């Protein structure tokens, strides 16, 4: 996958001004998304991962200030007009939302909502749109698609609704599919099915996918490459195998260790990362993770560690660039 990236983010910053100061929710993000790539973005609540995703579509709230550049196939999206954005949204870059229970309009049939994108972007309507929608419902493995087409959201289960939402996003054959915690609202078995579906769709559609989640387990199952975010910054970025084999950032390592390994004997208590994520309106001058970091040194508290290459396809923003664990606590 060496062709030109579909999506290029350069020095992207997203901030919100509030009474208690300016909250910089996304800071200095540089990211390339190759065609057909499956990228996972991991971080805890408030790490800026959803805001980063929304910035790729210009969907941040009215109070948001975007700086830097988001280019889709060379076209600049930051500062682009609503009309230009509307032409891209849904057609070229589509989004799957977190909660399938609220992402569908309760008063419209599945069919009406599914074909909405087709009507707007391609002018396809009527029987032709219906055929395409039913085809797509089959693609996302919904049984009896013709019947479901005429039904309303409340008549479908959560897993089915999420499949519908995914079908809705895919109907215009977008180049990029953004998924914001698509499995968080679902129970574990359904979650596995949806992940399997995403994996399958990715090989079928050639669309690049960006999956945002707080769950490392989810990422490990589907992604090629993982970006770890903390306090609005990318702190580590690597291929998924690399990240699991040798995480370089103490935060990533902490995340990884807080996932139970089902093959090994369970520890008494799962390790967790102490402390809380920082307030984005008053970030410390140095590394944002320093107050919670067991390796933190004096430099960490005063200077921002740059995101630097630490291996092939592996970048990390930490002054402790050596393998972790060498510094004893």
């Amino acid at each position, binding site marked *: 996958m060496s062709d030109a990236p579909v999506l290029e983010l350069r020095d992207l910053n997203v901030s919100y001004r509030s009474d208690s100061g300016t909250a910089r929710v996304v800071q200095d993000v540089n990211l390339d998304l190759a065609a057909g790539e499956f990228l996972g973005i991991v971080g805890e609540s408030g790490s800026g991962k959803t805001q980063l995703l929304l910035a790729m579509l210009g969907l941040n709230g009215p109070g948001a200030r975007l700086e830097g550049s988001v280019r889709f196939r060379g076209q600049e999206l930051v500062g682009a007009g609503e009309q230009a954005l*509307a032409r891209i949204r849904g057609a070229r870059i589509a989004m799957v*939302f977190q909660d399938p229970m609220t*992402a*569908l309009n309760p008063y419209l049939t599945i069919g009406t909502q599914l074909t909405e*994108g087709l009507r*707007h972007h391609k002018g396809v309507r009527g029987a032709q749109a219906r055929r395409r929608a039913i085809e797509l419902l089959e693609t996302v493995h919904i049984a009896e698609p013709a019947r479901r087409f005429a*039904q*309303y959201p409340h008549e479908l289960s959560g897993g089915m609704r999420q499949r519908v939402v995914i079908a*809705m996003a895919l109907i215009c054959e977008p180049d990029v599919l953004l998924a914001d915690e698509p499995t968080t609202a679902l129970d574990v078995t359904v979650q596995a099915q949806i992940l399997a579906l995403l994996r399958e769709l990715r090989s079928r559609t050639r669309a690049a996918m960006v999956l945002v989640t707080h769950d490392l387990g989810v990422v490990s199952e589907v992604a090629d490459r993982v970006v770890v975010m903390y306090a609005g910054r990318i702190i580590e970025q690597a291929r998924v195998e690399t990240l699991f084999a040798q995480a370089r950032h103490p935060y990533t390592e902490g995340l990884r260790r807080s996932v139970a390994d089902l093959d090994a004997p369970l520890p008494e208590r799962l390790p967790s990362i102490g402390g809380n994520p920082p307030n984005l309106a008053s970030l410390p001058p140095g590394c944002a993770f320093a107050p919670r970091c067991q390796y933190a040194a004096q430099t960490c508290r005063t200077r921002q560690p740059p995101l630097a290459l630490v291996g092939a396809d592996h970048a990390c923003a930490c002054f402790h660039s050596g393998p972790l664990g060498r510094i004893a606590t």
Partner: protein
Amino acid sequence: MTPGTATAPTGRSQWQLSLQRLRRHRGALAALGVLGVIVVLALLVPLLSPYDYAVPDWDAIYQPPGAAHWFGTDSLGRDLLVRVMWGCRISLLVGVAASIVSVVIGVVWGTTAGFAGGAVDSLMMRFVDILYAVPFIPLVIVLTVLFGRDFLLVFVAIGAVSWLDIARIVRGQTLSLKNREFIEAARALGVPTPTMIVRHLVPNLLGLIIIYATLTIPTVILFEAFLSFLGLGVHAPLASLGSLVSDGALHLSSNAYLLTVPAIFLTVIICAFSYLGDGLRDALDPREEPR
């Protein structure tokens, strides 16, 4: 409907579910029946009756209710049954038409303000606040003086105030719906704003709108009655329930039926609309358990 067919193979919309709940609401059904009967009577009786609502009959002044005149006659010998039915026509017409006008204005105003947000929203809602502050009865009196007593004026006057509540409610609801994920999802699909309002917002507001429309109708009817009672309503030979009550009140001690008959119709109509509105609220907004 048997339980077998109740789980229909094709989709049942929110509307169909609401209709089912409405069918189980006895009060609303009875109210709907009563209103239906009154509408039919109001339409048919003046057509079928040998009497005219406007032509005086000097040989039949103050006839008590009897075989010739079922509800009696008034001071000019006009048949009260026909006049009350005309009154129902006028009151219902004023009620429904003014409510539709006020709902349309209120919904357009409220959704626009709510959806636009920010300065536009503030400006539009302050305008509503100002209208709220206008003393209404003096305004109507001034309007009557300026334009003369006109049937249309009653509409305009009533419409001018009754949309304010709806605009506020619709705006509030729009604000909360605006941030729901399916609106966000529609935006992420590149759906333009007007389409978003019509397709995604209004259907979700419709239940609320219908409830308030049915609850606005009795208010408007009462208001029209009030204006007529003050002598600001419909023209003399024509009668609304309000003007009939007003006329009847003059004869309370001598011929009480002139007051009681239109008063009963007025009360029944208003109660029926209130019950209907109540039933619709339970049917369309079932979060609150019906009592």
